[in-house]
């Protein structure tokens, strides 16, 4: 009796599962490409915002270079990360660097910083934070465009010691009622620029070797060239 019931129910469920699987698998096949495309678009979105498509034409998601361990601390990375390189016709335009500050009001603030190869900021986006809603969360572009104020700044403009909030005689606005969050972000961006200065040469070398391999030329990117 038990076995009969087991058999019957199993068959029933199996038949259903089969039909279901068929439907699902076909839906999956049908939507697969579209999903892949959407996923890519979404992943690129933040990157694209920093370096728009008309400034580069390589695949940002693929052009990645690991960050050497000695810089992890500087960038606040716990388990490493990759720099994305944007190129226009093979020539590097900017680097997109992940960076985390632990000094947010409520812990880590993670961002990506786009740095042009001339050392100026191409754009910054906060990708993850736990700051107080309505207070510290204005670093998020969705809440305020404060973060756009970094575009074009570099370590020479303003001077390194002016990389601070106005309250502490810096160049950048703080938010009303919140100093800690913007200060942390400003400091971290400065640090990221500093990292870029230090690591730029290595990156360029790596890039040129890759470029040469691909294009069969023998070219070394130098700072001047990129600019």
């Amino acid at each position, binding site marked *: 009796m038990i076995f009969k*019931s087991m058999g*019957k*129910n199993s068959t*029933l*469920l199996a038949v*259903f*599962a089969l039909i*279901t699987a068929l*439907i*699902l698998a076909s*839906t*999956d096949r049908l*939507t697969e490409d*579209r*999903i892949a495309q*959407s*996923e890519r*678009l*979404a992943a690129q979105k933040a990157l694209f915002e920093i370096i728009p498509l008309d400034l580069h034409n390589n695949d940002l998601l693929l052009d990645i270079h690991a960050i050497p361990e000695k810089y992890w601390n500087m960038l606040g990375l716990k388990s490493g990360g990759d720099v994305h390189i944007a190129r226009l016709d093979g020539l590097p335009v900017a680097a997109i660097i992940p960076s985390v500050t632990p000094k947010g009001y409520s812990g880590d603030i993670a961002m990506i910083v786009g740095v042009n190869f001339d050392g100026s900021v191409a754009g910054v986006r906060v990708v993850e934070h736990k700051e107080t*809603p*309505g207070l510290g969360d204005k670093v998020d572009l969705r809440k305020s465009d404060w973060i756009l104020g970094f575009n074009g700044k570099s370590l020479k403009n303003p001077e390194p010691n002016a990389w601070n909030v106005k309250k502490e005689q810096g160049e950048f606005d703080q938010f009303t009622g919140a100093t800690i969050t913007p200060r942390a972000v400003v400091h971290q961006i400065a640090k990221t620029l500093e990292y870029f200065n230090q690591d730029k040469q290595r990156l360029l070398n790596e890039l040129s070797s890759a470029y040469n391999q691909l294009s069969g030329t023998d070219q070394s990117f130098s700072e001047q060239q990129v600019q």
Partner: protein
Amino acid sequence: MSNVSISEVTKNGLWTNNPALVQLLGLCPLLAVTGTVVNALGLGLATMMVLIGSNIIVSLIRHHVSDAVRLPVFVIIIATFVTCAELIMKAFTYELYQILGIFIPLIVTNCAILGRAEAFASKQSVGMAALDGFMMGLGFLMVLVCLGAVRELLGQGTLLADMQLLFGPIANSWTLRPFGEGYSFLIAILPPGAFLVMGFLMAIKNAIDWQIKLKAEAHKPAPIKGAKRIRTTGHIS
């Protein structure tokens, strides 16, 4: 149970037996994704589709499944629809999909759906089942959108923000700001706000029902008292 009228099914789904306000089912998505109208609408539509689909299929196969596996079969049917909905949303409204996140697969466990399959669709004709699915879904959707609208309006002072996630670029300019820029009352969009606004919606429904009842009572003829009595001790010779 076998013959119910269309108007009854409609009224049930939208008001008297509203899955969210009365049956208190599907509360998780109801409260979790109603920060804005667009989220609410997205999830509501997905739920409605699943509800209609599963009701139809359940009604179609109602004579062919044994009791032992009835529930698992229903669950599988629902899960199939949900997965399809998930895949489709992922393909066409990816950002919304990301915002709604885990709550799309969780439509499976929205008891309202299983409940309808079990209580209604498995006993009714396909047409009725479809209608019931639609009405219940609509009832759920209405509450979701109401909640979303109230929370969005109170919380960030906007209405119909980000509608482009669902309707594409034409919706870019739909956002309304009745209170002007800079308004915010965060609690409404944070978790506590969801519960509070929902509580008020329920209270409003209760108050309306109460009024209706008072009116109805005023018109109803007095019942004949004791009319339904029978003898327990049978025939007395």
